[in-house]
């Protein structure tokens, strides 16, 4: 046996890296998931419709005027021709036909649907954006700084500050001012005490104030528990009903009441990632905490957040439609899919298209987000990746 064969027999293949990059793997798995592709396509279509709809229906002389009332043309079925004899020249619809019919005031349902698409889109994205931002922030703090303790005096100070501000807003100016002044005095006191502390033994009260109250993790998770106790749709309904009607209030309220899930995901991811070697290496290299959190840990923790955000958009759109349906929500004459359906419900037997068109539109859009989100969950699941 010569040397060459010997080498060949005992040749050990060097360990191979993955044959494909993570992106290629993602594309391969995505290509197999037909429902997720369908969801993505519908979403892109919806996005284009909403954006073009915004341009076509806004401005002083929109191409499709969603607010044009033609009382002589009310409750016309879809695809019916406009009655040119009874209309003023400026009232004639652009295409000469009502693509999706007209409602009880003779407004073009197609134009109203276009206008409503933009509302659904922005409500979904802004509300979920708010909830994801809060969720990442709270979850990141709870996961990364969770083992730190808050000192009793800081805790009491924050409570007093919130209480004082709240009382000021609620027109109890006197008590509020007193509490805020006390806070201010405490800041001065602690600054003075730090510079001029010469006493050896600390008094009992001061020791108690400086003791550890709760850990950051406990505090944030208890806040999450408290928020989870509220019945969410009922809470949203209450707040939206009490606040003045506007689309921004709805977005903010939906966002503020749906961040708890994201917080839990992000916290769990941070807790496990924080202990990993690459974080220890980053710390050893002397990177700043900010950079470690946002450059090193966050990209690894973002996958479950993306999935829950996609499904969150679906539920935010459903919630907004439900609120519009109940008559809260975007004030009329602005059209949303929920209030087109809500107006149409009085005519379900005479004009079923007023119920079916917005209903099916909401169904398809929400379905596409759900399909895409679930597909994303499968694709990002490391158990399904090909092993080497």
């Amino acid at each position: 046996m010569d040397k060459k064969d010997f080498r060949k027999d005992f040749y050990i293949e060097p360990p191979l890296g993955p044959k494909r990059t993570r992106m290629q793997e993602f594309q391969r798995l995505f290509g197999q998931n037909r429902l997720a592709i369908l969801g993505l396509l519908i979403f892109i279509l919806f996005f284009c419709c909403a954006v073009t709809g915004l341009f076509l229906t806004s401005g002083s002389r929109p191409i499709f005027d969603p607010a044009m009332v033609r009382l002589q043309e009310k409750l016309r079925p879809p695809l019916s021709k406009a009655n040119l004899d009874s209309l003023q020249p400026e009232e004639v619809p652009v295409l000469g036909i009502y693509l999706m019919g007209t409602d009880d005031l003779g407004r073009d349902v197609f134009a109203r649907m276009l206008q409503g698409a933009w509302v659904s889109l922005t409500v979904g994205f802004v509300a979920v954006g708010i909830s994801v931002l809060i969720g990442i922030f709270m979850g990141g703090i709870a996961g990364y700084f969770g083992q730190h303790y808050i000192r009793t005096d800081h805790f009491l100070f924050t409570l007093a500050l919130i209480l004082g501000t709240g009382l000021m807003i609620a027109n109890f100016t006197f008590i509020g001012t007193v509490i805020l002044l006390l806070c201010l005095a405490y800041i001065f006191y602690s600054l003075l005490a730090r510079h001029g502390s010469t006493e050896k033994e600390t008094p009992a009260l001061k020791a108690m104030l400086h003791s550890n109250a709760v850990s950051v993790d406990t505090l944030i998770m208890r806040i999450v528990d408290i928020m989870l106790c509220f019945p969410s749709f009922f809470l949203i309904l209450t707040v939206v009903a009490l606040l003045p009607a506007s689309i921004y209030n709805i977005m903010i309220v939906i966002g503020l009441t749906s961040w708890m899930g994201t917080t839990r995901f992000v916290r769990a991811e941070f807790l496990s990632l924080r202990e990993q070697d690459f974080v220890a290496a980053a710390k050893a290299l002397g990177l700043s905490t900010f950079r470690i959190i946002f450059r090193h840990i966050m990209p690894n923790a973002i996958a479950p957040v993306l999935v829950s955000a996609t499904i969150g958009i679906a539920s935010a759109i459903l919630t907004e439609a439900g609120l519009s349906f109940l008559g809260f929500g975007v004030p009329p004459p602005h059209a949303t899919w929920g209030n087109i359906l809500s107006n149409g419900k009085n005519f379900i037997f005479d004009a079923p298209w007023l119920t079916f068109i917005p209903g099916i539109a909401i169904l398809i859009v929400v379905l596409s987000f759900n399909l895409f989100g679930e597909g994303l969950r499968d694709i990002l699941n490391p158990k399904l990746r090909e092993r080497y």
Partner: protein
Amino acid sequence: MLSFIGRSIVQKTITLFFVSIVSFLIIHLAPGKPSQVDPLNPKFTPEVVERFQKEFHLDKPLYIQYIYFYHDLFTGKTVSWKDNQSVLKKIWERFLNSLPLFVVGTLITWTLSFPVGIRSAIFRGGIYDRSATFLSYLLISIPGFFFAYVLIIFVVTHFHVPVIGMETFGIGDAPATYLFMDRIWHLLLPSVLGATGGIAVLSRYVRSQMLEVEGQDYIRTARAKGLPPEQVHYKHALRNALLPFVTMFGLILPGLIGGSVIIESIFSWPGMGRMAYEAILARDYPIILTVNFVSAVLVLAGTFISDLLYLVVDPRIRL
């Protein structure tokens, strides 16, 4: 065990206390006063408003109002601002109306989703599984109010039965069987609607649980022994897959009071959700706060019960 119970009761009481504070603050700090609901009403003179505020302690500082409210709530003396009736009595009446919806809806959910989920787990990847998956996505995504109208149109045009309300108006002295069928028809649609989301979610969950258990080693052993497939699926796999669902009995408790606002207002069903909706419209703070408080209690009790059930059912868990 006892220490776990004690600890979690203390923890949940603290959570409940903060929930009560937060809900009170949300309602009272929101713009708009309950005395200004109907400014055009000529009966709402400044004197009446002042008397109203005095009667319900609205002129006192916020923390005193808080103490007054929860003191009244725990002694059962809270009255609705709208009609001066006892809030707890009102909630109890509406709760009894919502109860049949909840019971029938839960029964439909649990009886339908188990067979569907198990079957799609056994025939994984087949046409049945794929269509069940797609159907459950469809059911999750369909807006409840739209589905309600589709069902109403279908039932009314095909069966010619009235479905709105709890019973047909003025049905007084009809024969007993007719009365019974009337109640059934009125009950059926809202409970099916209440169950749709639940069926979709629960059947997916059953499927994934079954799949997880079917991949275990002891299932392979059971197959290798030559047991018939039915016995493997239903005796070995299903029994172990059922474990997490025992705890879900605790988690359906909050649904008792939730009562869907939208579905109850479409069907004019005088239940909890509709009462809460009317209370919100009328700014009837005692009712809103009480409903909120009771549902928070139910959520906390539900998680507590499900923790306990887990302890009882799963011997591997020790606290």
